């Protein structure tokens, strides 16, 4: 039998049984398409969670105050409530923690903000110029807080994009306007670029003012609520964490680390917590994908088995008129391969369309990975080929007359 005849027979067999062929292909398409779409959503979600963690800044070490506990009191005010971190602590960290690339102390509190009749309540962050670098804040227009404005206690403010639309309405340029924070007038000098929501605090809904101004005119003291420290790279983060802990314990005269009135959080701790969540998420999606692959596989298997059983008579006839066993095997193998290739190609296309549709309409980022495509295609193709080929091989071993009588 010639190769060209083999292809001709394959083509004829597939075209002649249009319904059967298209059902088989459909089974493969759905099996592969759903796995690719599911895995791409899972991996996309993982990617977007990781990038939103990175958006608060990279290689970050955060220093926050510890419990507030009055003398002899057992009532805890909760973490972060104590006013134990001061401007001097921040200055000491800048001076003595040599591994730190940049240090940005901040004081943040919520205030009512008014602009000509409109008002909103949002967090006002008093900070320094390096905050932009450490916390990955980019300017959309105007400028960020400068060292000069911190030194001169300027009453200037930089707004987040959400705050701008809350106070001025969408599409209005607020630069040069005056806003009133806690009865003090501030001039708007810039707007930050949108970062997208990251968890409970929305970095787009915030007002940035110089640290010194916030301490003097808004808070009335020189405490800070958070000191953000950026490490050179991930490997120096724990060393920085230890240096800061030692420095602050010495400054606050605390000998036992358990009693520290501050805490130092490493960003990799946050990443680890988040990746344990995304890990569960991925396992969940992978198991759904696995089940759909299994169901798809059983569908392919059913289709292939019924096809070959039905065609045992045809196999008998072909043998009766002189086909070798190998001719039969090659023909059915070629049919199974052709069906799985067509189904696989369409399935990859379907998976890609589904993933793009999810991105388009649900706004969830999706990533199609080569490994998921290979896995889905490989499993379906293997099932299709094994169950298309194996029963045909068995039938080709029968006596022609037994195959012809088969029902």
């Amino acid at each position, binding site marked *: 039998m010639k190769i060209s005849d083999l292809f001709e027979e394959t083509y*004829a067999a597939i075209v002649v049984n249009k319904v059967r062929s298209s059902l088989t292909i459909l089974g493969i398409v759905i099996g592969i398409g759903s796995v690719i779409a599911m895995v791409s959503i899972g991996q996309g979600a993982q990617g977007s969670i990781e990038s939103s963690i990175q958006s608060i800044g990279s290689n970050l070490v955060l220093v926050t105050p510890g419990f507030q506990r009055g003398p002899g009191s057992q009532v805890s005010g909760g973490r972060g409530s104590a006013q134990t971190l001061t401007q001097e602590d921040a200055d000491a960290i800048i001076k003595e923690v040599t591994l730190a690339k940049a240090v940005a102390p901040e004081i943040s509190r919520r205030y009512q903000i008014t602009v000509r009749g409109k008002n909103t309540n949002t967090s006002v962050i008093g900070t320094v110029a390096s905050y932009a670098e450490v916390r990955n804040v980019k300017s959309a227009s105007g400028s960020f807080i400068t060292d000069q404005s911190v030194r001169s206690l300027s009453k200037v403010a930089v707004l987040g994009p959400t705050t701008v639309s809350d106070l001025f309405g969408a599409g209005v340029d607020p630069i040069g306007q005056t806003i009133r924070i806690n009865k003090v007038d501030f001039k708007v000098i810039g707007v930050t670029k949108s970062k997208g929501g990251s968890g409970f605090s929305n970095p787009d809904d915030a007002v940035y003012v110089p640290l010194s101004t916030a301490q003097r005119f808004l808070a009335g003291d020189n405490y800070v609520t958070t000191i953000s420290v950026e490490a050179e790279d991930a490997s120096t983060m724990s060393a920085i964490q230890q240096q800061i802990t030692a420095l602050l314990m010495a400054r606050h005269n605390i000998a036992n680390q358990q009693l520290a009135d501050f805490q130092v959080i490493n960003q990799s701790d946050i990443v680890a917590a988040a990746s344990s969540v995304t890990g569960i998420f991925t396992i969940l999606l992978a198991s759904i994908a696995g089940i759909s692959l299994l169901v798809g596989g059983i569908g392919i298997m059913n289709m292939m088995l019924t096809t070959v059983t039905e065609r045992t008579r045809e196999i008998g006839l072909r043998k009766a008129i002189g086909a070798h066993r190998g001719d039969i095997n090659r023909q059915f193998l070629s049919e199974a391969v052709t069906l799985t290739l067509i189904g696989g190609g369409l399935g990859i296309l379907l998976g890609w369309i589904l993933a793009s549709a999810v991105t388009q309409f649900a706004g969830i980022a999706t990533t199609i990975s080569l490994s998921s495509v290979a896995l889905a295609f490989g499993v379906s193709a293997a099932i299709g080929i094994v169950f298309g080929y194996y029963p045909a091989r068995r039938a080709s071993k029968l006596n022609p007359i037994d195959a012809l009588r088969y029902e």
Partner: protein
Amino acid sequence: MIECRSITKIYLNGGQETTVLRSVSFNIANGEFVAIMGPSGSGKSTLMHILGCLDSPTSGQYLLNGHNVAELSDDALADIRREKIGFVFQAFNLLPRATVLRNVALPLVYAGISRSGREEVAKKSLAAVNLEESHYNHLSNQLSGGQIQRVAIARALVNNPAIILADEPTGNLDTKTGEAVLATFESLNKQGRTIVLITHERDVAAHAKRIIHIRDGQIINDEKTR
């Protein structure tokens, strides 16, 4: 050429043995035209399948051109079926949803003949059974019983076999078409081919030169009529 030595065929059906052929022995020489007659269930179809190398006897020997068929491999048997034997099945066994031309040319696919060569031979073969050319590209399941029968015979002829085995070739045909088919067999026989056909009609058997009567798996009469 065809030599049967005490061929016995036993089917196992649900643990129960059914003896279809009991120690059947006969020879058919080259160029003979033999009719096998017998009532239904007499084992004539089974005998025909064994002669066509489609089935194997439970015991006894079948020698084709001096070769013991039992000793040949599966693929060697396929080669014999393709090169030496043309088989017309009682149920025709055409590929459904395939054209007449493709059905007739199918044995030549396995002989490795090119597409154009196949179609040329298939057309000659169809012309020999008097099928109108307008039907060549019809699907086999769109044809009438008589036309299907002629396509089945054309397929049996297409590989130019030395032996033609036909199981009730006129069973579904009206008298006129039946006569035409038998005339085809007679002219094929005149060309020197060996013809063996199964029938239960005396008129049909009368065309043959030799009639073997079979009943309950045994030969009860073997007569030369001409």
